[in-house]
């Protein structure tokens, strides 16, 4: 009734191939964009921006990155955290060597380094598949983590071994560093995430994205009809690592403010993988939903005891948090193995035919 595409005729090819062919979807996207770009900055406090919105967007971008590789190209990777780290360290080095260049440009450039590293560690995917590949990507995770610790050049020979984000300005406004306003950082992150999502989304709809999906569905068959696995797999690794690298650079520069090698450990990789799986493999909208769910849920759980006036010490809450997250992950996988994106598509279908059952 409210969500019905009957009567929306497509009269040319451009309409037919639009990213959102249904008018209601377009309206929904515009509403979401207005909400994120106008309403949130007005309504949300600095605290909310800093603890929820900025990391949520960054994680969503990282999730999209991993989703390209795992959800669309079918290559299971456990090295996301390290690829994000490459982006962060590359950005740090670039901005220390060329401090006058706009930081946003370096954040985007750092993805290139991450993509190069991703391609190198993607090479084994040509020979090995499935869980063997997943374990092979762990090699990337541990090797790169070791590099972050053992190569002092990467963190400018700091005594602390951590990278500290310097203050960088553009047009007289501090973009990064301790003096940057959360609102500024939020708007930059939002812009980068929206642009990247748009680009990756279109990449996925085109020829390259289709070859990835062919590789995912059956690589031998794809090979037989002329998809070159070398190019398809490595380009998926490159794009995925690029996106993850940008997310990693933003992770440090626009959110954490400082990072040590342990920030990019295997936990981060798993966290992003959870977001991909719970959001839905092979779904852009699912990436956002998964990131929101996995990132925001622990924050909410932490707030529960205080809300009921219970005095539980922080460590216990943290442990309970682990128990609840573990149980919830299993529960959601049992209830909906295809993730939150599937829930949304079921709901959408119901809305389309409402008030009739089918």
């Amino acid at each position, binding site marked *: 009734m409210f969500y019905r595409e009957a009567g929306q005729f497509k009269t040319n090819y451009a309409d037919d191939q639009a990213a959102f062919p249904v008018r209601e979807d377009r309206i929904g996207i515009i509403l979401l964009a207005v909400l994120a770009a106008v309403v949130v900055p007005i309504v949300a406090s600095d605290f909310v921006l800093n603890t929820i919105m900025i990391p949520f967007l960054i994680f969503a971008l990282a999730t999209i990155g991993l989703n390209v590789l795992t959800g669309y190209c079918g290559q299971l990777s456990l090295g996301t955290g390290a690829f994000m780290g490459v982006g962060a360290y590359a950005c740090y080095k670039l901005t220390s060597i060329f401090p006058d260049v706009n930081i946003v440009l370096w954040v985007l450039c750092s993805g290139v380094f991450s993509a190069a590293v991703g391609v190198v560690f993607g090479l084994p995917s040509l020979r*090995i598949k499935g*869980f063997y590949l997943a374990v092979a990507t762990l090699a990337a995770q541990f090797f790169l983590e070791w590099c972050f610790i053992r190569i002092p050049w990467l963190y400018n020979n700091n005594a602390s071994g951590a990278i500290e984000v310097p203050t960088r300005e553009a047009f007289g406004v501090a973009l990064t560093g301790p003096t940057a306003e959360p609102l500024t950082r939020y708007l930059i992150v939002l812009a980068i995430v929206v642009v990247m999502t748009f680009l990756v989304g279109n990449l996925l709809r085109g020829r390259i994205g289709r070859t990835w999906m062919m590789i995912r569905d*059956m690589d031998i068959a794809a090979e037989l009809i002329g998809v070159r696995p070398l190019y398809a797999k490595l380009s998926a690794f490159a794009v995925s690592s690029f996106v993850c690298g940008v997310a990693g650079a933003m992770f440090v520069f626009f959110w954490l403010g400082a990072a040590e090698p342990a920030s990019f450990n295997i936990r981060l990789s*798993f966290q992003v993988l959870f977001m991909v799986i719970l959001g839905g493999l092979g779904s852009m909208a699912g990436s956002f939903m998964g990131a929101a769910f996995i990132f925001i849920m622990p924050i909410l759980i932490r707030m529960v005891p205080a809300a009921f006036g219970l005095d539980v010490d922080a460590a216990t809450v943290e442990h309970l948090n682990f128990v609840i997250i573990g149980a919830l992950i299993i529960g959601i996988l049992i209830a909906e193995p295809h993730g939150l994106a599937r829930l949304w598509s079921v709901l959408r279908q119901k809305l389309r035919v409402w008030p009739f059952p089918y």
Partner: protein
Amino acid sequence: MDILYRIVIDPFVQMVATPDFLIQVLWEGFVAGVLYALIALGFVLIFKASGVFNFAQGIMVVFAALSLVGFVEVGVPAPIAFVLCLGVMLVLAVGVERLVLRPLVNQPDIILFMATIGLTFFLIGLGELIFGGEPKTMVTEELFLPTGSSVWEPAGLGPDGAPGFILFQHLDVAAAAIALALVAALGFFFSKTRIGRALRAVADDHQAALSVGISLNQIWVIVWFAAGVVALFTGIMWGARSDVSFALEIIAFKALPVLILGGFTSIPGAIVGGLIIGIGEKLGEIYWGPLVGGGIESWLAYMIALVFLLFRPQGLFGERIIERI
């Protein structure tokens, strides 16, 4: 040229100059390898029987060791605590089968893999809630495990022909012996008993096994319990060598390269892979590690495994991968 010399020649010169030290390194690599093999064995058991890549094996090791120490702390004699721990692992196996595996049957591998990561989180949280986060000391002596060490001084193996000096921790000897005994017992169990045959049938073909009347659910409980028992032994051994804490979870990541090296489905593979990784890692760390600043243990095993994988994508002993359209 200097760097080439230090990579290609110098380590071997060192090895020849002090053979006793080399033997010591090999021995320690061997013991570590046996223990890696034990963890890998837990993975292989479950992967063979249910096709689940059980990420929770590492945390099961910690959980088993912690509950053993926990029982002893509340005053249960160690041998009884050991039996109680077996009970805990059985409860865990039944619980996992009922609550995780059964509802997720027939789902893609990656979903099951994710579920075991969920299980890992659950067990980490539960373990810390019950036992607290601090490291604990393993009850080595109560379990009648030997402590102390003995020295072997073989003539002429030291530097410049002096007598060598090789230290054997009694605990390591016991660990190796127990691990080998456990592997032998599992081998016997798999090849000679009725349940073992059923397990192998399930590993070969789920549907064929079902059609001849083997209960998959029962088999899953049995393999998860067997993996739990392996985890308990591993936990005791690792716990006795260092403290029992959640840091032990890291050793699961040591077992993964062993797995891909040996093949996910092969018990001999897990053992041989464990030894290759254990010895290779120690040799690399001692002789080549200082060249790049040390600490290479964390990834060297993966690199060794990757090199092997490039030549045999299914691991050393894995089943040949046949793909059909």
